[in-house]
C-alpha cells in the first residue's frame, strides 16, 4: 500500500489489477483527517470523526503533528506551534517534543503511528487480509530527522516501511504512470503545513528529479491562521476582548476559518458566523459575525503566496531552467484549489496547470505505484531522486563545510578522513547538519556521532575514514573505520531528536493495546444508518466487514 501521511489529511492507495486505486473507508471517504482524539472513556478516535472533537475536546485532540515531527523542542517551528495549538506540547528527553494528553505522554511519531494504523486498517478491511508493507510519503524538503521520525512512526504502527518517498515525486509518478511521455514537469505541492516544488524530467521509463526546494513550515494552516487573526482583531475592536486567550474560542474560530477558506474556492465572499464564541464574566454570550470577500482574503495571504514563488525560483535556478522550459505543471494539496493559488501558478509558469490530477489523492496513488514497483519483478520504470538539503559537517567556531550538496542524486556516499589530534586519543566526535548556511546555527543539527575504540597511537598516526551515506529513503547513515587496520569504529549517536531502538519497541508494544477507531461506537451506528439510507445500493467494497483489531 502507499500512504500519503499529510499534515491535515491522510490517504491510502493500493495497486489493484495493475491500476492504482484509492481505498475508501467504510463510509466512502478517501481523505481522512490526520487527527487523533483521546476520549474520556479511553477510546482513541482517528480521522474525520476525531476532527469533529476539535472543539468540544480541544485539549485532547491532536492535529497537525507533522509540523512537529522530527524537530527539537527548541526549534522556532515548535515555538510557533506552542502558541497556536490547544493541546499540550511538552519537552521530552534529549530536547525532543512530546505531547501530553490526559495522564499520558506521547512522542510525535506515536501520534502519527495512530493515523498510519488507521490507514492500514482501511486497506485490510478492503482486501480482507493483513497488509504490512507500505511506502510512506514525506515532503521532499524534509530533513533526515523528519524522515527518520516518519519511518519510526511506521514501525510503531506495525508497518514494514519499504520506502520513504517524496510527495512531489509520488505525484509525478501518478501523473506519468503508463503515459509514455517526454516532459519536464514542475510539481507545486502546497499541503496543510508544508510546501514543496520539484522539477522532474519524465521519459519513457525514467522519472528523474532534477531539483527540489521547499519550506517545511508553510501551508494551508497558515492561510487559516491569517483568517483567524483577522477575525480575532475584528472581534477585539468591536468588543474589547482578546479571543486568542481562550483556547476553546480559538478552536471554534479555527474551524470557521477553515470553512471560510474552502468557501472562497467557489464563492466571492464567505459569511462567517460563530455562535456563542465568547461568554463574559456576567454570563453574557457573544456571536462572531463577519463577511470575508475573496479579494480581501487574497490580500491577507499575498505574502504567503509570494513565498511559494521564491521557492519555485530556487528550484528552477538549481535545475538551470526557466519557467518557460516547463511542459507541465501539477498541482498537489488541498490549498491549490484556491483561486488565488491557481491564478498565480498560471501567471508564473505561463501555462494552465494540469486539470486531470486530483490534488487530494495523487500522492497516495503515486506511493502505491512505487510500493507495487518495489515488490514486483520486471518493473520497467525507475526513479531517480535527489537530496533536498546540503549535508554538512560541523567544523570549528560554529562553521560547517558541505559534504553532499543539495540536489545531488541519491543514493550516494562520500568519505572524509580524520586524524587524531592527541596522543592515544580513543574517540572522535563529529556533528552533522543539514541546511544551506555556512554557519551551523543557520542549519539543522542532525546528530552528534562519537566513534570510539580507536587504537592507541601517537597523535596524527591514526587515520579514521568516515563515510556519510544518503540512502534511497533520503536518510543519512554515518560509519567510520580505521584506514590502516580496516577496523570499524563503534558509532554512537549522542544527540538526536529521534527515538532509540528500545523506545520504538516499547511504543510498538504499547500501541498493540490501544484501541484505535475512526468512529465513536454510538456515532458509528448513527452514521451507518444514515449512509445506508442515502445509498440505496451498496457495492461489495463498502460492505466488507472490518477484521477484528
Amino acid at each position, binding site marked *: 500500500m502507499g500512504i500519503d501521511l499529510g499534515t491535515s489529511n491522510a490517504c491510502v492507495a493500493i495497486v489493484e489489477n495493475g491500476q492504482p486505486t484509492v481505498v475508501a473507508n467504510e463510509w466512502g471517504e478517501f481523505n481522512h483527517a490526520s487527527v487523533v482524539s483521546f476520549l474520556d472513556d479511553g477510546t482513541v478516535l482517528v480521522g474525520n470523526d476525531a476532527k469533529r472533537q476539535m472543539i468540544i475536546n480541544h485539549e485532547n485532540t491532536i492535529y497537525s503533528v507533522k509540523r512537529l515531527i522530527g524537530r527539537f523542542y527548541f526549534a522556532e517551528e515548535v515555538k510557533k506551534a506552542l502558541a497556536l495549538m490547544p493541546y499540550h506540547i511538552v519537552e521530552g528527553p534529549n530536547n525532543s517534543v512530546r505531547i501530553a494528553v490526559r495522564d499520558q505522554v506521547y512522542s510525535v511519531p506515536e501520534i502519527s503511528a495512530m493515523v498510519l494504523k488507521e490507514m492500514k486498517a482501511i486497506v485490510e478491511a478492503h482486501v480482507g487480509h493483513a497488509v504490512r508493507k507500505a511506502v510512506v510519503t514525506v515532503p521532499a524538503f524534509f530533513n533526515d530527522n523528519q524522515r527518520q521520525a516518519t519511518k519510526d512512526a511506521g514501525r510503531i504502527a506495525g508497518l514494514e516501511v*519499504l520506502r520513504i518517498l517524496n510527495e512531489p515525486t509520488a505525484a509525478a509518478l501518478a501523473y506519468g504512470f503508463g503515459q509514455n511521455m517526454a516532459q519536464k514537469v514542475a510539481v507545486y505541492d502546497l499541503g496543510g503545513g508544508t510546501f514543496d516544488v520539484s522539477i522532474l524530467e519524465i*521519459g519513457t*521509463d*525514467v522519472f*528523474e528529479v532534477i531539483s527540489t526546494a521547499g519550506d517545511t513550515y508553510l501551508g494551508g494552516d497558515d492561510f487559516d491562521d491569517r483568517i483567524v487573526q483577522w477575525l480575532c482583531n475584528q472581534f477585539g475592536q468591536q468588543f474589547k476582548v482578546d479571543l486568542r486567550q481562550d483556547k476553546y474560542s480559538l478552536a471554534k474560530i479555527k474551524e470557521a476559518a477553515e470553512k471560510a477558506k474552502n468557501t472562497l474556492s467557489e464563492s466571492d465572499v464567505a459569511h462567517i458566523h460563530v455562535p456563542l464564541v465568547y461568554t463574559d464574566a456576567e454570563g453574557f454570550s457573544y456571536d462572531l459575525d463577519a463577511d470575508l470577500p475573496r479579494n480581501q482574503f487574497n490580500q491577507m495571504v499575498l505574502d504567503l503566496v509570494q513565498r511559494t514563488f521564491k521557492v519555485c525560483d530556487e528550484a528552477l535556478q538549481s535545475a538551470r531552467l526557466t519557467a518557460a522550459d516547463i511542459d507541465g505543471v501539477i498541482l498537489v494539496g488541498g490549498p491549490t484549489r484556491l483561486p488565488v493559488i491557481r491564478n498565480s501558478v498560471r501567471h508564473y509558469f505561463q501555462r494552465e496547470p494540469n486539470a486531470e490530477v486530483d490534488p487530494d489523492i495523487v500522492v497516495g496513488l503515486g506511493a502505491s505505484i512505487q510500493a507495487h*514497483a*518495489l*515488490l*514486483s*519483478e*520486471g*518493473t520497467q520504470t*525507475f*526513479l*531517480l531522486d535527489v537530496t533536498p538539503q546540503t549535508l554538512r559537517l560541523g567544523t570549528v567556531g560554529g562553521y560547517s563545510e558541505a559534504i553532499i550538496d543539495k540536489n*545531488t*542524486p*541519491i*543514493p*550516494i*556516499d*562520500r*568519505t*572524509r*578522513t580524520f586524524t587524531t589530534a592527541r596522543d592515544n586519543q580513543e574517540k572522535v566526535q563529529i556533528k552533522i547538519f543539514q541546511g544551506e548556511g555556512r554557519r551551523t546555527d543557520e542549519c539543522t543539527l542532525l546528530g552528534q556521532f562519537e566513534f570510539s575504540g580507536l587504537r592507541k597511537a601517537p597523535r596524527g598516526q591514526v587515520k579514521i575514514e568516515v563515510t556519510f*551515506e544518503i*540512502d*534511497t529513503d533520503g536518510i543519512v547513515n554515518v560509519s567510520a573505520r580505521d584506514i590502516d587496520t580496516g577496523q570499524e569504529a563503534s558509532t554512537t549517536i549522542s544527540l538526536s531528536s529521534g527515538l532509540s531502538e528500545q523506545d520504538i519497541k516499547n511504543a510498538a508494544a504499547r500501541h498493540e493495546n490501544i484501541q484505535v477507531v475512526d468512529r465513536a461506537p454510538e456515532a458509528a451506528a448513527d452514521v451507518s444508518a444514515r449512509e445506508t439510507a442515502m445509498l440505496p445500493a451498496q457495492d461489495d467494497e463498502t460492505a466488507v466487514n472490518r477484521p477484528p483489531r
Partner: protein
Amino acid sequence: MDYTDPSYHPQLKQLAATIDQLDYYEILNLQQDASTAQLKESYFSQSRALHPDRFYHLPDEELKTAIHKIYKRITEAYVILKDPQKRAKYTADVNGPQRQEKLRFNEAAEEEAKKEQEEAREVCKTPKGRKLWRTVEQDLRDEKWDAAYRNLQSISLWEPGNPTIAELKATVDKKRKGLTK
C-alpha cells in the same frame, strides 16, 4: 540485460568487491571524451540495469548490499563527471602518475580543483606580482593614477608577458595624462 536474473548474481557481487579499482569512466562504461549527452544516456542505462529498486523484491541480502554499493558509485561517477570543472580535474588525475589514489574524487581533489580555479582567475601569477596587484587595486579605488601606474610598471618587470597588465597600464596612463593636462 536483466541483471536480476540469478545467473548474473556472482558477477555482480564480484563487481562490488572490486569496484574500488575502477575509474568513473569505467564504471559508466564511457570513453574519456564522451559528450554530456552520452554521459547522461549512460547514467540512465546503468540505472535501468542496476538501480537498487529493481532488486528490492529479491531475498538475497548480500546481493542487495552489493548492488547498493555499485549503484552509489554510479551516482557518484555521474555527479562528478557532469560538473565540467571537476571532470577536467578528475580526468587529468586518473591519467596521471597517482591514478591509484585518485580513482575517487575526494575532498583533496576538490580542494586542489578549487585552488587551481582560483589561480586561473588571478591576474598575476608570480608571488611578487600578486603582492603588488593588491596595492594596484587599492590605488585604482582611490583613483591614485600615478601610484597605480608605477606599481603596474613594477609588475610588468616580474611578468613581462602579462596581457591584462599591459592593457591596464595603457588605460591608467591615459587617465594619468588626462588629469595632468
